């Protein structure tokens, strides 16, 4: 601490040290501009964080504080009661809590592993090899980014019914394999790899698939992590909606969202449930963020 203060003294006072820190020492940056940026960003930080703080504090409020007038932003007497209630409710429910957890586990495991493998194979072929139909597939992948699941929802419902996949976890997992965002990012990332990498593997006698698994996948780890977080996020939040109607194959997010929707009496529990649902993908993102950003650097559209 003292060393720190001495350092600030040496660089010419707190103000100079402050400016130097926030302009990263670049001389062509104005102090006023930097202050402006900081204020603008702080305002947005408040806007972005407010609902999250609100949700988190509700989760720790005792019941009488949840209905107090006027409502307070932060809990006066924080309690873990809502989380205990949630646990009690979960262990008392008709379908055991562990069953929901297991279903979500299956969904996430098969969904993420499948999508990573399937997208990586196609991305490798598109990034590094010539074949007939490549241009078409390339274009279709980009076109698919231009519309959302809302468009394909109705026919997909019919197709899944006809395939006999309705009311099984496959109804959620299989359609996710067709998503192109992950494939697009993986392909762009792989295009940057030097061809010599593949040549070397070929000289060693590795098949194309072997090359992908043992040479390419380890080098594109950031892109894999990115596909993982995006896929995870989609599957984690998926409640199964109208695709799953048997209670014991529904995922955790269904249980949590049904608590959240069950109204006033369970508001404390609902907040606790919402907080947990929200925190898990955020934690994974915090862990993987440097990988994600490394991948997104190659996300640009080529001509």
């Amino acid at each position: 601490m003292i060393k720190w203060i001495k350092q600030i003294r040496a660089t010419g006072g707190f103000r100079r040290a402050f400016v130097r820190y926030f302009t990263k020492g670049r001389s062509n940056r104005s102090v006023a501009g930097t202050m402006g940026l900081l204020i603008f960003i702080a305002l947005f930080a408040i806007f972005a964080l407010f609902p999250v703080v609100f949700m988190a504090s509700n989760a720790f409020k005792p019941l009488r504080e949840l209905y107090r007038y006027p409502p307070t932003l932060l809990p006066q007497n924080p309690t873990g009661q809502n989380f205990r209630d949630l646990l009690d409710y979960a262990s008392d429910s008709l379908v055991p809590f562990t069953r929901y957890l297991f279903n979500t586990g299956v969904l996430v495991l098969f969904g993420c592993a499948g999508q990573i493998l399937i997208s990586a194979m196609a991305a490798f072929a598109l990034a590094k090899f010539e074949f007939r139909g490549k241009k078409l597939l390339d274009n279709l992948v980009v076109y698919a980014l231009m519309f959302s699941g809302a468009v394909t929802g109705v026919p997909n419902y019919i197709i899944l019914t006809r395939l006999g996949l309705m009311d099984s976890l496959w109804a959620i997992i299989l359609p996710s394999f067709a998503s192109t965002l992950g494939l697009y990012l993986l392909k762009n990332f792989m295009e940057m790899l030097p061809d010599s990498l593949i040549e070397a593997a070929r000289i060693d006698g590795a098949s194309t698939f072997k090359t992908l698994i043992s040479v390419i996948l380890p080098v594109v780890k950031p892109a894999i992590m990115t596909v993982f977080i995006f896929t995870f996020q989609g599957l984690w939040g998926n409640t199964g909606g109208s695709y799953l109607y048997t209670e014991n194959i529904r995922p955790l997010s269904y249980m949590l969202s049904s608590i959240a929707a069950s109204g006033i009496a369970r508001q404390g529990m609902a907040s606790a449930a919402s907080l947990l649902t929200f925190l898990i993908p955020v934690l994974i993102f915090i862990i993987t963020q440097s990988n994600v950003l490394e991948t997104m650097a190659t996300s640009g559209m080529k001509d």
Partner: protein
Amino acid sequence: MSNMSKPIKKKVPLLTELRTKKDIYLMILPFSIAFLIFTVAPVLFAVVMSFTNYNVIQTPGFLGLENYINLFLNDDLFMTALQNTFIMAIITGPVGFLLSFTMAWMLCELPDKVRIFMTVVLYGPSLAGNAYMIWGLIFADDSNGFINSWLMRLGVMDSAVLWLHDAKYMMTIILIVQLWMSFGVGFLSFIAGLQGVDRSQLEAGMVDGITNRWQELWYIVLPSMKPVLLFGSIMSITGAYSISGSALTGFPSTGYATHSIVDHLGDYGTTRLEMGYASAIAVVLFILMVGSNKLIQKFLRKVGT
């Protein structure tokens, strides 16, 4: 043999190509199958169904353009949905895009720790699948709602406002919530793209007399960011057309003030099971999404060249 001198594109028979590049075709096979079944087929299927009166129960009959005629001439609610969707898309699309870029650029001006912290803070809402519940509590209709109670205590209002059920405010609330969630995948790619701007180019710019950050942004950063901006615009546009008002304001929303195309589609597709009519709505949505994307791509590609 006169054309021997010209370079001839060698056309290998398809079967030979399939045999010699078997491993490559096998690699694209699983994705191609999934993509064909769950993306290509549904789009084509929707187009075909949109010309029928398919409703799951009866055998479908061919209607020609009747669904589309009804949609545009006889369905007032669809017109409301179209209008609401345009309002949502025009505001959250471009504004979300510009906001994401501006914020990304500002963050990259700041030290790494601040940037990483703010990236998580701003991207966080996109990870909150159940965001609507939180906003529902914040804008709760009774005087115990957070916004209501504060505005009443500050003396701005005398009585509680039905934020989510008064047609005067509903659209504004939806727009606020959507902007809250607008720092998504595009935002991440802007941050990453800005980090990747060539340092030596920036230094060269300083030597060449770039005296402030605005000039640097305009002359060096923006031109080199074009591919990333194109990608970000696709993310923004597709997202902006996918907004469902009913997630926050309930279905049907009061006076249909936030009724969007996605809500209309959900109503016919999953509640009334009028698949033919729903398909026509889906086809219109598809055309709007892809059309807007293509248009903006064309426009953005021209900028600065």
